[in-house]
């Protein structure tokens, strides 16, 4: 009985769902800014992968060029104060930014989605506790919490990812909770419940797929926020410790000598800004493509 009910329900829904995603993809492709974002991010990803095996000069080797010298044919983006090649360090810095951005969002998804689903579906005391925590975290400044955490845990790539995720999990939890609250009242969830599906099955099989669009959008906007955060921390000297190159750290080193060697600060600043912009354009495009209410 349950099986036939589920079969009857899934059959008309399945093509509808497929058309939502292909529809979204079609609309995303037509959004030129979002497409430019995708292309640029692919480029950054390739650069970061290439930097694992090859950079024009060694990332750490000092004295490969004249310190503080500007762009030249040997060193496209100039040389930093220790005589390290800026282009090589920019390429390696892309790895750090992408790892921090994506790593943080993976952690945020892992914390926020289950908490949001459970709070929205089961309501009650758990929901109240979660809502209180979410409001509490919104009330305290994220940068200061992250600074305290990194300061106490010690700066390292893992600790920075943890610190950023701790200050940003509630965006995802709040979103998923809200989605779950409205989805759990819908007919198809009621039908699944009537067919005897267990809460876990309903949450994973019915509610989560329908909340996936907003979750993807939120995660896409979360990545640049995390990258920005890491750049802030590095800029303040609490980021990934040197000599690992990070864009924020490079900008911080460069700003001291901005009069002598502007390239040292301009290059990482532009790399960082373009990456953040690309993610934001992509996020805007995804939102227009996936949000049915925004359909024009």
């Amino acid at each position, binding site marked *: 009985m349950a099986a036939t009910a589920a079969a009857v329900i899934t059959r008309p829904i399945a093509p509808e769902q497929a058309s939502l995603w292909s529809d979204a993809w079609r609309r995303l492709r037509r959004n030129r800014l979002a497409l430019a974002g995708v292309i640029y991010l692919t480029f950054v990803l390739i650069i970061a992968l290439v930097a694992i095996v090859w950079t024009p000069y060694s990332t750490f080797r000092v004295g490969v060029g004249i310190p503080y010298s500007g762009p030249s044919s040997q060193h496209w983006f100039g040389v930093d104060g220790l005589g390290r090649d800026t282009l090589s360090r920019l390429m390696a810095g892309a790895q750090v930014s992408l790892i921090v951005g994506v790593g943080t969002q993976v952690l945020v998804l892992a914390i926020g989605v289950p908490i949001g689903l459970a709070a929205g579906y089961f309501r009650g005391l758990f929901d109240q506790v979660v809502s209180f925590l979410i409001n509490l975290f919104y009330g305290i*400044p*994220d940068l200061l919490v992250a600074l*305290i955490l990194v300061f106490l845990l010690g700066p390292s790539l893992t600790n920075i990812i943890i610190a950023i995720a701790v200050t940003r999990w509630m965006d995802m939890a709040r979103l998923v909770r809200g989605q779950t609250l409205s989805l759990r009242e819908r007919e198809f969830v009621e039908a699944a419940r009537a067919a005897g599906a267990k809460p876990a099955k309903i949450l994973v099989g019915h509610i989560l797929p329908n909340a996936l669009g907003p979750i993807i959008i939120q995660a896409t906007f979360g990545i640049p926020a995390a990258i920005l955060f890491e750049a*802030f921390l590095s800029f*303040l*000297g609490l980021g990934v410790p040197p000599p690992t190159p990070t864009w924020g750290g490079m*900008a911080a080193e460069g700003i001291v000598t901005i009069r002598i060697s502007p390239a040292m600060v301009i290059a990482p600043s532009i790399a960082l*800004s373009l990456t953040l*912009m690309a993610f934001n*354009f992509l996020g805007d495009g995804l939102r227009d493509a996936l949000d049915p209410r925004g359909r024009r």
Partner: protein
Amino acid sequence: MFTRGTLIYIAQRLVLILLAVLGVSSLVFLGIHRLPGDALFSEHLHGDQYQQTLHHYGLDRPLWVQYVSFLAGMLHGDLGESLVNRGVPITPIVVREMSVSAEIGFVALLFTIGVGMLFGVVAAIRQNTWTDYLLSTASVVGYSMPNFVIATFLILVFGIWLDNLTQGTFYFQIGWPGRYGNIGAIWLPAFALGFPYASIVARLTRASMLEVIRQDYVRTARAKGLRESVIMIRHALRNALIPVITILGPLVIGIITGGVVIENIFGIPGLGKEFANSILNRDYNIVIGVFTGYAALVGLANLGVDLLYVVIDPRIRY
């Protein structure tokens, strides 16, 4: 406007702020004292002298005794003395720097709201023209640029290129004349600090203006033959403001935390600069003091925003 209920509400909030400040400073205090290493340990200080210095700061006592005396000091508004500059009390420093940070933050906030709303309204009125596209794109660019990147480019343009171009007649002097900045010193840091948030305000204002100018009462106002400027400002903008007001809280927090970076770039003697310096100097007592100052600043700013809601929206009562 401020009824008796509001005053009670303010009193309650002040108590909460005090508790939050105590909580934050306790967390940082206990966290720092768990860190390995020793703030005073150096090659210049050993043997008896080292023991005496430890004793001077009470660092030779058990942790809970130190914590109790720290809490007692906090309740008297005493944050102890600097570990690096012996005998220098921290509270006056932190209070002074708080006021400097508040000054730059306030100017940045004014800039954020003013410019953000202006651009948002213009973009909404000229919807789907090149003005709109330009402003909308500029706002995505704006909030994608970290404030230190904006600050860097502003310094390059106004501090260095303009200096070279005009042979030093017009340029931006980085630095802070006296205790508080004047308008000549503050406009560039305030711009760098406020620009990302101005972009967000512009986007929000544009969206809510577009919604509001399609409402019936705006059409009625037009039908009455009111001038377009009166309709836009008195009828549309006032209602379009409400969503903007709701983000004022996060905005203020963003500006306060963003100030940490901006103060360091422009050499502004506020809490943010002290924060970076004290960590570099391992002056842990000042680190605790700075976090305490930030907790107080954020709490007071949030209270100010909530009271502003009462002023702007008469429906809100506490």
